């Protein structure tokens, strides 16, 4: 359901996933919260022109599969990308 043309838009929505989700068996609200600072700030990033936001969307999808999450939608803004996930 992930296609390159859709990702050119600033907002991505996986309509197929969003229509198939059912929360009937969900039970645990309390979340696990992981925050990783690879560098202390943007200015400290090695000067290669690449940052975490250069990582292709498809790679984030693969990482999130390991967490048992899928991407429902994504919003890209000036300084951050926000992914809304299943579960």
């Amino acid at each position, binding site marked *: 359901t992930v296609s390159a043309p859709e990702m050119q838009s600033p907002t991505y929505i996986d309509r197929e996933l969003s229509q198939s*989700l059912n929360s009937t068996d969900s039970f645990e609200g309390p*979340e696990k919260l*992981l925050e990783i*600072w690879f560098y202390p700030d943007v200015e400290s990033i090695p000067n290669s022109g690449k940052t975490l936001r250069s990582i292709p969307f498809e790679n984030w999808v693969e990482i999130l599969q390991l*967490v048992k999450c899928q991407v429902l939608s*994504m919003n890209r803004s000036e300084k951050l990308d*926000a992914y*809304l996930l299943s579960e």
Partner: protein
Amino acid sequence: SSLFVFDHKLTLKTCGTTTTLFCLEALFALVKQVLGWSFENGLKMNPYKVFYSRRCFMFPAKQSWIHRNWNDEVNFLDRFFWHGKNYLVGRLDQANHWNLYVTDSNQDLKTRELSDETDEDETLEILMTGLKPNKAQQFVIGNREDRPPQSEEPEKDPGHVLGAEITRTTKLDRVYDCGGGDSDQQQQQSRNLSLREDSFAFSPCGYSSNVIVDGQYYYTLHVTPEDGWSYASFESNVPANLISQGRQDQVNVIRHVLDTFQPSEFCLTFFARDTANENFYKLVKLCDNIPNYVKKDKIIYDLDEYQLLYLRFSAR
């Protein structure tokens, strides 16, 4: 669940039976492969800083083995990262304590004085249980087929349309004073602030929302409204005082969120860099009096480069 990716850091917040820690190895392999960033130091990783935290689970036995108990999670993290410390925050005899794992900052990666923006870094999290039934009901849509959403945006799907409806009816898009008020002065002050909201209503119940403020800050909400184990969380890195130009502080934000859910209990954590954050000390003082709630615990930790405030309240 939500993921926020900045240029230099990421935040992953997942609920249910997700396996958050299982992504670590692949994540560090990915940043090495795609970005050329290597944080290997001997057999472990040493990025600038790592935080991992969670409230104690309601149903720990249903979690995947790694997340069933805190000690296993800490052992896993310790095998992966250098210089980790873990904290059990709150009362051991209570079923609602909070756990934190944090690594010392890798000073080798700090090659210069940090920017003001980083110095002002702060994160507020409110974890609420026992939501008032009529408040929890706002996040129950039943079967989507029984409630077709009214939308003028045909490209959007029902879950997102209903999610956006909930965000507006619960006023969760108004948590922060980004201006947009009636007065000319307010509109003038807020002209550069934007809100980008992405909400989803699960069927038959449940709700998640990410809101980006001014293109650089976020707040996120996750709600499981089921009777018996209702829960809602609010997490934000929005500097309320700064973006409202002094019209709003974090206590005002906390009251807005509490009013939306009216929980029977909640715990609050507030992280701030310890160098210059006035809001931390203001919050320590102001949070002594939250209307309709009795303070049960108040704990302050002086962590490496950060101050942590933990508070727990019960409804009167």
